């Protein structure tokens, strides 16, 4: 038994499920322990000292005690509460989308430090940067890199030829682009404009600072959103629930005006 009985870690709270009368089972994403689950006792009571530090979308230092089934949280202290995210409906929804994807793609107890950094470095700009869509697209592309589904944007995945500046298509089943020639033999492909493809390549190969200088017009934004939702849905074999919610909000006028 080399595991100490008590341990501590930084964590971002990515999911919470009610347990019994006053408890919650939380899913935490941590820098070195990957995704873990733990019980937070009494956090649904109004006088809980821990509740605010363990709310969804909060970055906290967490102390835990090992248990037979689930570990129990014994203490916590907020590092960043991402207050801006929580005071705007659209931002809250974007952040929940990000954490839903991390929860879906991350394996339990497998360290993925770059993914932790990506999650943190996505929640921060969601709070302050203008183009939230760009933040989301950067996150999706780099999440796929981190979890082993890096899409191929340079060559045709069927004939391996370098892609020409024409309307090539993304094929979720093949995990990458198809040239116009090969597209004819495939079902369910997603045509991408030359500019949209350029943006995807840049997001895949640059850091966030470089990517954030991009200016996306609404038609490219829409193309990118469509192709990413398609691919993510294909990989997860189900709808991304909070993506459906983001689309619902977009359809309703007046829902996206940020509270400033």
């Amino acid at each position, binding site marked *: 038994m080399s595991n100490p009985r008590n341990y501590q870690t930084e964590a971002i709270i990515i*999911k919470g499920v009610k347990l*019994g*009368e006053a408890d919650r089972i939380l899913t935490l994403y941590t820098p070195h322990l990957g995704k873990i689950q733990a019980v937070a006792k009494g956090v649904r009571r*109004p*006088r809980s*000292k821990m*509740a*605010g*530090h363990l*709310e*969804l*979308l*909060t970055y906290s230092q967490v102390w835990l005690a090992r248990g037979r089934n689930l570990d129990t949280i014994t203490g916590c202290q*907020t590092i960043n*509460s991402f*207050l801006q995210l*929580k005071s*705007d*409906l659209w931002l*809250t*929804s974007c952040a*929940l*989308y990000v*954490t*839903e994807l991390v*929860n879906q793609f991350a394996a339990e107890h497998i360290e993925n430090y770059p993914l932790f950094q990506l999650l943190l470095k996505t929640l921060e700009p969601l709070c302050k940067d203008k183009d939230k869509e760009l933040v989301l697209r950067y996150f999706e592309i780099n999440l796929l890199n981190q979890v082993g589904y890096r899409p191929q944007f340079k060559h045709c995945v069927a004939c391996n030829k370098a892609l020409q500046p024409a309307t090539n298509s993304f094929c979720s089943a093949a995990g990458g682009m198809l040239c116009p020639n090969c597209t004819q033999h495939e079902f369910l492909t997603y045509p991408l404009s030359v500019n949209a493809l350029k943006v995807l390549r840049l997001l895949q190969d640059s850091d966030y600072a470089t990517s954030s200088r991009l200016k996306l017009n609404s038609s490219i934004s829409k193309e990118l959103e469509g192709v990413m939702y398609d691919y993510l849905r294909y990989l997860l074999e189900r*709808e991304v*629930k*909070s993506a*459906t*919610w*983001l689309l*619902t909000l977009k359809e309703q006028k*007046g*829902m996206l005006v940020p509270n400033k």
Partner: protein
Amino acid sequence: MDQGSIPTSEAVYKLIQGLSKLPGIGPKSAQRVTYYLLHAPEEQVKQLSDAILSIKQKTKLCSVCFNVTDTETCLICRNEQREHGKICVVEQPQDVPALEHTTSYHGLYHVLHGAISPTEGIGPDDLKINELLERLKSNKIDEVILATNPNIEGEATAMYLSKLISPMGIKVTRLAMGLPFGTELEYADDVTLTHAIEGRQEF
């Protein structure tokens, strides 16, 4: 008798199992209640079992506010003494008695039966939100008080409702969020403290 041993009667065993699934009742309390009932007068046990059955068979949701009631509309909605221009929106039926217990609110309620939860796929159509909007259109309402829970889902629901209701020219308020009574400042988290500072009042 040993507390942990398995009862020799299947009926006893079944009731213990059933009771121990209830909130706040562990296996030991379940056993104590079971043996109490075993020795209680049959009439008392029958009354209890009828009472349990009737919460499933005789209750329905109020056609106006969707609170739990035995009649078409609930006692609160029918009470002429209450302020019919105010609606307090809550997530669950059990939130109503909590607010009523304070005796400081005299308006009406609207029970949503949940909160918006994007990651669980719970959206406005799964809640009594359209019913609320209809109520606001067809009645003279001057204030809607959003009393959803102070967590991510409750907050998202409140923000969503506020965006729908404010354009209707109705005053929308949110229950004040801040430090719960009896707590100590040093343990408060940033969100709670920020709300407490923003919502400070002259002393």
